[in-house]
């Protein structure tokens, strides 16, 4: 996959299911800071950024497919209800600017981009309470995309398995301007981050953090 295309895929992944750039920065900083060790691990596992990009799955029609799963110790009904409240999804998926619910089936999704905001209309295609929720952009959307989240009981009373699949078609046009700045983001990683954020919200009610803790760095938190 050529670099430009890879960038586009990565960028669109961000637009669709991104983790916030805020959470990406410490990672990048530290991974770069330990570049030797990181490269060694990548080399040894045969995974470099390009190889990771090449693992991006595609459907026969050329759409990009991203999928992941997480087990959450909460009943499926509660998880479904959280997900079905589309207007609150931006709390889970930090790349989303907002989701406006237009009616029972239709909603308008907005993400921010350097050129301004990009938005499209989506409609719910599958709605099985407590089990499955699917959606698809309506024809003519800026970014042609579809998604589905499945909720199924985990064996042994461990809660619910949440499985997400997303597909999208890399377009040109408006989204092109988004590319340069956001290149390199990995949609699969962003989906995983979103699922972990969801799990922690549901199991703990908060996200663990070290932001503001004391350290020997200038401007560290805490009180002197």
């Amino acid at each position, binding site marked *: 996959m050529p670099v430009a295309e890879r960038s586009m895929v990565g960028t669109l992944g961000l637009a669709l299911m991104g983790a916030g750039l805020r959470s990406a920065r*410490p*990672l990048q900083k*530290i*991974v770069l*800071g*330990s570049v*030797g*060790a*990181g490269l*060694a*691990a990548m080399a*040894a*596992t045969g*995974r470099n950024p390009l190889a990771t990009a090449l693992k991006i799955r595609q459907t026969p029609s050329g759409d990009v497919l991203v999928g992941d799963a997480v*087990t959450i*110790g909460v009943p499926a009904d509660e998880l479904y209800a959280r997900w079905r409240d589309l207007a609150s999804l931006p709390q889970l998926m930090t790349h989303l600017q907002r989701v406006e619910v237009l009616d029972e089936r239709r909603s308008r999704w907005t993400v921010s981009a350097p050129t301004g905001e990009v938005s499209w209309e989506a409609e719910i295609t599958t709605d099985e309470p407590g089990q499955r929720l699917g959606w698809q952009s309506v024809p003519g959307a800026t970014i042609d995309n579809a998604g589905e989240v499945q909720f199924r009981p985990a064996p042994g009373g*461990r*809660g619910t398995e949440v499985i997400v699949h997303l597909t999208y078609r890399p377009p040109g046009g408006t989204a092109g301007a988004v590319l340069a700045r956001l290149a390199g983001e990995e949609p699969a*990683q962003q989906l*995983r*981050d979103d699922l*972990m954020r969801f*799990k*922690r919200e549901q*199991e*703990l009610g*908060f*996200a*663990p*953090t*070290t*932001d*503001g*803790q*004391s*350290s*020997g*760095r200038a401007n*560290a*938190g*805490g*009180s*002197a």
Partner: protein
Amino acid sequence: MKAIVWQGANHVGVETVPDPTLLLPSDAIVRITSTAICGSDLHLLDGVIPSMDRGDILGHEFMGEVVEVGRDVKTLRVGDRVVVPFNIACGVCDPCRRGLFSACDNSNPNHRMAEALYGAVSGGGLFGYSHMYGGYAGGQAQYVRVPFADVGPHKIESDLRDEQVLFLTDIFPTGYQAAENCGIVPGRDVVAVFGAGPVGQFAARSAQMLGAAHVIVIDRVPERLAMAQTAGCQTINYEQDDVLVALREATGGRGPDHVIDAVGMEAHGHGPGALVDTAKQRLKLSFDRITALRWAILSCAKGGTVSMPGVYGGLIDKLPMGAAFAKGLTFKMGQTHTQRHIGPLLGRIEAGEIDPSFVITHRASLDQAPELYKTFRNKHDGCIKVVLDPWA
């Protein structure tokens, strides 16, 4: 407050840093009365653990007095005296509910960093042990923020001295879990322990408590071997003897029924394997040197267990897998599930079965810590375990 701060490979220093504050309603702040330097801190000093940042506060073995609690904390009150496990666990995820506290799904805010570096899912967070383990500030300091305060800290209500209970935070449960993982058959099984550092000492004594018929400890440092002998263990100095031959002689040719690798990634040793390991580690091509692990596999008896409390960081090769397969060995490893051992082991201390303070050789102030890191690493001055008084 005063704290021990990582300043880069081979540099730790004492710095004045801001006091910690509550960051979440489930946090507590502990005024530290005793803290220790752990053998695994030496991996940080040596710079072989990735994702350390200049300014990180070190330390994961500490205890003290609760001075502040967040509004969601239910089990702790200001004034409680607590020991705090080195690993941070949420208490509600599936691994936590199964007692696998060190494998907590939720306590590491930087889980994606561990995934990037290991190529696999991360365990939970650790105090003072790199950003891929959460980047939590450690407890070689006067105060520390303790997240998930209802899950980790264990109250000490008897009048045992700090020195008798401090090691419940890490090295005692770590040595104990290593012995427990062997599945020792009392009165029958012979256990060998590679590495007579603090964890090895506790592993050897725990194997005895669990009924091992005979315990053999292997190291090269005379005072460490002497400490093991005091507990009634047989010892082998691998610089004077061929370890594999000596272990066969000590076990009628069978080999030890179980072998504990209490050394981990920075093993010394000799031979071509050890040289290759060291070169690769220096070149950052590998995190690990595995002499002790190789010996453990080669010496272990048929059907035995190789138990690994020692820390490993990355990918290893030149592992004698053929020998492991031929003998049908079981491998057990991983960070200690400290939270589940503290109560029972505290009971053993209170019952007088063991006094963990035997392992202490050095006591010092925080100001002396940077020097003692080096004394400990170089095994000078008979140094086996250092306890620090943050207020001295």
